């Protein structure tokens, strides 16, 4: 038993990470010398009772979400069953600073953030790796559906789409560095979700039938507008005044709105105006507090710009490349030509116009099954 085979598994109390832990603790045994030593870690990221009673947020936190006591309990029960050491690590301050606060700020500036990617970049694959090394584990494992492997020819770590494309989480992992990829195991990458549940049953995990979590872990009931108001209230801040005009693409004022953070590009409901044909949010101009609405056809865009780029299978983007681009979690990647843009940006020109390119979301570039890299949509 040497230090190099000690693996820290990030355990959320869900089926995926629990099964990942079970597989590492019980299956990848190898010989006695190379046997894995597995340590379970749960990151305590957010106190689910923190905003209760504020601005209509329910008193009782719901079960089945990240960091609820129920989930920590479930994770601990799995660790007990697997007979591995298990610890809860508090990262609440860092999570608030690097994920929650930027999430709120993005909405207030008319953008639509993805907290999961921020969490992966700043917490799971950064802080967790540091904590893991502190306890003598050189590698971490998570329950993400993704594949990583080293390509000696390119001398790079490659991130690839998993066996179960319906569960593909590579979109949220585009920010991983070479160092992080080298130190991470994705034990579920070659499995489908049904196979994962089957493995969970095989290992007798009592949470094998636990439903998947879908919502943003720190937003109770999924109402992010309510969350933003309650959070700012708790911070002793007033929600910035971002109410303004609702206009058409021609600049015609057709109504007023209560604040830019209530909108996301492509949104149809809750616009507060009636119209003969359906209206959608086309653009949000936070500076002028203007929300532009229009017909579905006006949502189509041929070009996007992405910034804060991270490259995985290439060192940098030297010239134009044919890629597929994914612009939101549930988007079918679309063909585009990618080329370097100004000031560390990249520009993707789609073959076919894409609906609702949304500032604040990630644009992830795929070369076949490989994640070339990605960035944040400007």
């Amino acid at each position, binding site marked *: 038993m040497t230090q190099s085979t000690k693996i820290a598994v990030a355990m959320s109390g869900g089926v995926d990470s629990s099964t990942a832990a079970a597989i590492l603790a019980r299956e990848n045994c190898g010989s006695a010398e190379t046997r894995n030593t597995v340590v379970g870690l749960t990151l305590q990221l957010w106190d689910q009772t923190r905003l209760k009673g504020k601005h209509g947020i329910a008193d009782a936190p719901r079960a089945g979400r990240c960091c609820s006591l129920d989930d920590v309990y479930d994770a601990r029960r799995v660790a007990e069953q697997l007979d591995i050491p298990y610890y*809860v690590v508090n990262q609440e301050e860092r999570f608030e600073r690097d994920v929650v606060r930027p999430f709120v700020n993005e909405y207030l500036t008319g953008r639509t953030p993805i907290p999961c990617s921020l969490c992966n970049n700043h917490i799971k694959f950064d802080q967790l790796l540091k*904590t893991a090394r*502190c306890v003598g584990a050189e590698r971490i494992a998570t329950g993400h559906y993704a594949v990583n492997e080293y390509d000696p020819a390119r001398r790079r770590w490659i991130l690839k789409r998993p066996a179960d494309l319906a569960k593909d989480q590579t979109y949220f992992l585009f920010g991983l560095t070479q160092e992080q990829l080298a130190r991470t195991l994705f034990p579920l990458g070659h499995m489908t979700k049904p196979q994962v549940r089957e493995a969970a049953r095989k290992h007798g995990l009592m949470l094998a039938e636990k439903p998947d979590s879908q919502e943003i872990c720190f937003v109770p009931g999924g109402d992010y507008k309510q969350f933003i108001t309650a959070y700012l209230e708790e911070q002793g801040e007033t929600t910035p005044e971002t109410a303004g005009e609702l206009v058409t693409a021609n600049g015609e004022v057709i109504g007023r709105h209560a604040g830019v953070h209530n909108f996301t590009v492509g949104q149809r409901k809750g616009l507060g105006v009636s119209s003969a044909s359906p209206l959608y949010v086309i653009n949000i101009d936070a500076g002028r507090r203007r929300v532009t609405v229009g017909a579905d056809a006006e949502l189509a865009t041929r070009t996007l710009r992405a910034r804060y780029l991270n490259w995985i299978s290439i060192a940098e983007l030297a010239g134009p490349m044919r890629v597929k681009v994914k612009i939101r979690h549930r988007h079918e990647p679309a063909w585009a030509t990618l080329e370097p843009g100004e000031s560390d940006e990249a520009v993707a020109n789609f073959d076919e116009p894409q609906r609702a390119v949304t500032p604040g979301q990630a644009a992830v570039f795929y070369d076949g099954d490989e994640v070339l890299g990605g960035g944040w949509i400007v």
Partner: protein
Amino acid sequence: MRRVYCDANATTPLLPEVMAAMRPYWMEEFGNASSIHLQGQKARKAVDYAREALAGFFHCREAEVVFNSGGTEGDNTAIFGILRAGDHFITTSIEHSAVLRAADRMAERRVDVTLVAPSKDGLIDPEEIRRAIGLSESRRTLVSVMLANNETGVLQPVEEIGRIAEEAGAYFHIDAVQGAGKVEFDVRRFRCHMCSISAHKMHGPKGVGAMYVRRGTPLEPLIVGGSHERRQRAGTENVPGIVGLGKAVEMAMAGIEDGTMERIAQLRGQLETGILAIPGTRVNGGRAPRVANTTNIHFEQLEGEALVIALDLKGIAVSGGSACHSGSTEPSHVLMAMGLDKNAARASLRFSLLKTATDEDVDQILRVVPEAVKHLRALAPEAAVTLG
């Protein structure tokens, strides 16, 4: 791997004598102490003998001993049982959550709560208590102060506070959970009306404790039902637990007399000397009088949580803050009240020796800790700085 348990302030194992004393009361002498028949009488006798031991421990009458489920119940009973809307509650910002959360609830119920802060050495100044009592005017006042702090081991000047409370006609409760069994103990000298202790902090069983309630104290019971414990605490007596507590306090009294605590103090000294040889370390509360078994050490440039985990995986059990936060670590409210910032509080660890600790235990700790600290500091030199 030989493990060293150095977290006695969280809990302690039973001494063999305690286990032996309790053993007959699970299966053979299982009676209900309230029953009339022989089985009941045997259980009653065991409870009465334990009460006698507790009375000797507290230095009070047997009728002034109330058995309960432990320290939290004792603290809650004293606070909820005395205070009513409009009263004044004075306590300190370094108390256990069993007192502080009860104070929160009292505040919600229109009791005026005053929290007294400690000095940077972790000591409560009795004059601050006097000043707080001055704010009471004619209101009924309860003062609650701990005998020894669970995180730093600092002994509070309860005798002086007791004198001040007595002069002012205030009720005085001592949370003695951490001090009991480690120092000379006498409720008459402390001049308190109530005092709470817990068995499992002194090599007794978990889930049982006792409270001294001075005769004539208008304490309303927290738990009502049958007429157990002179109607002060309802519920069938936990006979094996009470027997274990009785034996544990006897052993504790003997341990204070036979030089055990001096031996532990010497071991604590060796431990501190060894750890303080690591650069960037200091003792929190080290200049105040302390119980013999506890030392709380600030390791600069370190995340205490990571060190606790690393040490655990290397066979050393210690604690970061207090252990009562559902497995997750918050920065210690005690250390923050002493003026440490969040990073320094998070970078602090508590070592608390068992009465059965040996030189070998301390040697093993000192073989592991310096190396682990060096390793962690090399990995994350920025950790303590970038947090928060």
